[in-house]
C-alpha cells in the first residue's frame, strides 16, 4: 500500500509537484496520466527514494520515505520507461541474480528466485545469453522479471509502454494483470489514454505538478460513454494549454 502525503518538489525556479496526495491500495492499479513535464516521473522518482521531496512524505507499506528509505526501496520494484536498463555484458540470469543480491538475498535464494522468474516469464532459452544480444521484447521481459526479483508488494512503472512494439507492449500489460492477481499495488504512468483506461482501476490526472482529478474507472464507465471519458481526460490533461 502507498500513501502519498502532500508532496511538494521544486527544481530551481520550477515547481515540479505541488501538494500531491493520493493512496494506492493493495491489488489496485493506479494510472498516472499527464503530459510531458507534468510531474509523473518526478513523483515516481520520489516514491522510489531517488529524489527527496521538499515537503510531505510517502509511506510504502507503512515505511516512511524520509526516515526509512532503504526499507521503502526493499518494498518497491521499479521499471523506467522503455529504457530497460539491463547490463548488456551480463546474461539475463546474471542480471536477475545481481539485483536479487543487491536487495539482500543470499546466493542460494537469489539463484532459486531467478530460476522461478525465468520459468514464469518463459525465457529459459535465452537466460544464459548476454542481454546485449536481445530484442526489445526479450529485454522488456527480463527487465520486468528483474524489477520483481525481490518480490516487492509495490510496483512503479514509468511509461512502460513508451516506444514499444505490440509484442513488447503485450508483455508489459500481461504483467500488469499479473500484479493485480497477486495483490500488488501498482502506479504506472503513461501518455496513452487508451492504455491507462484499459488497465487502471483508478486514473489520477496530473497537470503542471498538480493533481487535477482522480477517477475510479468502473464508476466512470457506468456513468459515461467512452468518448465522454476521453474528452474529459483530454481537457484535464491539457488543462489551460488547450486555450493557448
Amino acid at each position, binding site marked *: 500500500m502507498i500513501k502519498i502525503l502532500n508532496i511538494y518538489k521544486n527544481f*530551481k525556479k520550477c515547481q515540479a509537484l505541488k501538494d500531491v496526495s493520493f493512496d494506492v491500495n493493495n491489488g489496485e492499479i493506479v494510472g498516472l496520466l499527464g503530459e510531458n513535464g507534468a510531474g509523473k516521473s518526478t513523483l515516481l522518482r520520489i516514491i522510489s527514494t531517488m529524489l527527496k521531496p521538499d515537503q510531505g512524505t510517502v509511506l510504502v507499506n507503512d515505511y516512511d520515505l524520509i526516515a526509512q528509505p532503504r526499507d521503502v526501496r526493499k518494498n518497491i520494484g521499479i521499471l523506467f520507461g522503455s529504457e530497460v536498463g539491463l547490463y548488456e*555484458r551480463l546474461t539475463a540470469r546474471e542480471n536477475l541474480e545481481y539485483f536479487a543480491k543487491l536487495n539482500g538475498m543470499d546466493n542460494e535464494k537469489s539463484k532459486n528466485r531467478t530460476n522461478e522468474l525465468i520459468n514464469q516469464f518463459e525465457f529459459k532459452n535465452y537466460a544464459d545469453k548476454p542481454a546485449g544480444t536481445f530484442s526489445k521484447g526479450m529485454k522488456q521481459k527480463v527487465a520486468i522479471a528483474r524489477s520483481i526479483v525481490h518480490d516487492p508488494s509495490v510496483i512503479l512503472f514509468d511509461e512502460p509502454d513508451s516506444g514499444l512494439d505490440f509484442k513488447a507492449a503485450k508483455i508489459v500489460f500481461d504483467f500488469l494483470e499479473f500484479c493485480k492477481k497477486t495483490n500488488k499495488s501498482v502506479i504506472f504512468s503513461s501518455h496513452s489514454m487508451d492504455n491507462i483506461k484499459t488497465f487502471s482501476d483508478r486514473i489520477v490526472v496530473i497537470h503542471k505538478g498538480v493533481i487535477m482529478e482522480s477517477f475510479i474507472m468502473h464508476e466512470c464507465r457506468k456513468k459515461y460513454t467512452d468518448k465522454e471519458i476521453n474528452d474529459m481526460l483530454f481537457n484535464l490533461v491539457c488543462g489551460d494549454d488547450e486555450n493557448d
Partner: protein
Amino acid sequence: MIKQMVVVLVKELKCIIRDKKTFIFGIVLPFLWVPVMLLIIDFSMKSSQSQISDNVNIGISSKDNSFYTFCSAQKNITIIDVNDPKSSKIAAYVTLDADIDSKILGGEDFNLNVDYNDSSINSMMSIPIVSYYEGIYRSIINDYRSRFKNKEGLNKFVAIEIPYTLDEQVPNINTSSLYFNMLVPMMLILYCCIGSASTANDLSAGEKERGTLESLLSTGADRTGIIIGKLLATTAMGATSGLCTVLGLCGYLLISSGSQKIHLSVLEMVSLLVIILFTSMFFASVNLAVGVYSRSYKEAQTYLTPMSIICLIPAYFTYTLDASGIGIGYLCVPVLNIICIIKEIFANAVNIYHVSIVVFWLILYVLSAFYITNNMFKKESVVFRI
C-alpha cells in the same frame, strides 16, 4: 554494506573482463606499448649512432695545415668545404689559427675550437667522435714538439690513420637515464590514470547514459557500498594497466641488448607494487568523482582528457631531478611524489621512509577524493544533474 560492496565489485569486474575494448586498451596495449616504444627509440638511437660513427662530416676554417692533414687521413671523417659553421651539411665546425703549424713549430699556444649545432641530434652525437680525434691530434702534436722542429716532417707525422672501433673507443649514448628518469614514471602515471579513467567513466557516467543507474539506485543497496564496489573495480583496472606497463618494461629489458639493464630488489619490487596500487586508487577516486558528476560518457571524457595530460607535466618537470637528491617537499605534492618515488625505485635508491611518506599522502588523497565522490553520489542534484 560489505556484502553489497562485494556483489558490486564482482559484477563490475565481470563486466570489465567481458569488454574487449577495455581488455585491449587497458591490458594488452600498456603491455605492448612500452617495449615497442622503447625498442623503436633504441633502434633509432643505434642507427643514428652507427651512421655517425661510420662518417662524420666536419668543416675546417683553414686548409693547408697539420690538423687538416690529420683529419683527411681518418676514414670516418669527411671534410666538407663550407664557410657557415651552422651549415646542415656538417656535424661540427673546427676553427683554428691560420698559422697553426708555425705556432706549433715555434712552441707557441694555438687555438683550435670545435663548434657543434645544439639543434641537431647528429651534431650532438658526433661530439664524442670529434673530441676523440681532437684529443689524439693534440697528443700527436705534443709528441712531435718533443722530438722534431721541421714543418714538412709535421705533416708527414700527423698523416696517420687512427683505427678505432665503435664499442671500444666511441662511447654509447646511454638511454637508460631517459627511460628511467622520465619515460617510465610518465608511462606508469599515464596508464594508472587512463587505465582507470575509461572504467570509471563506464561505471558512472556510462551507467547514467544507459539508464542502468536508476535501476541500481532503486535497489535496497546502500549507496556507499555501491560506490566502494565501483571504486575497487576501477582501482583494479588502473593497477592492472600499471602492472602491465611494468611487465612490458621488464619484457623490454629482457630482450634488449643495450646498457639499460636494471635489477630490482624484493623491497623495491614491493614498494613499486604498493605505489602502483595506491596511485591507481587515487586516480580511480578522482576519475569516479568526475564520472559521477558528468551527464554522459562523452562529457566525462572531455573532463578527463586534459587531466591525464596535466598529470604528465610533473614527469617533464622532474626529468633532471637526481633520484638520490629528492627532498621531502617533493614527496608531499600530488603526482610529483609518485614520480619521485618511482625514480628512486628504478635508481635502486629506494628509501622506505620516503615510500611511507608518499603512501601516507596517497591514502590521504584517496580518502579525500572518496569522501567527495561518495557525497556527490548521494546528491540528487549531481546524480540527476537537476
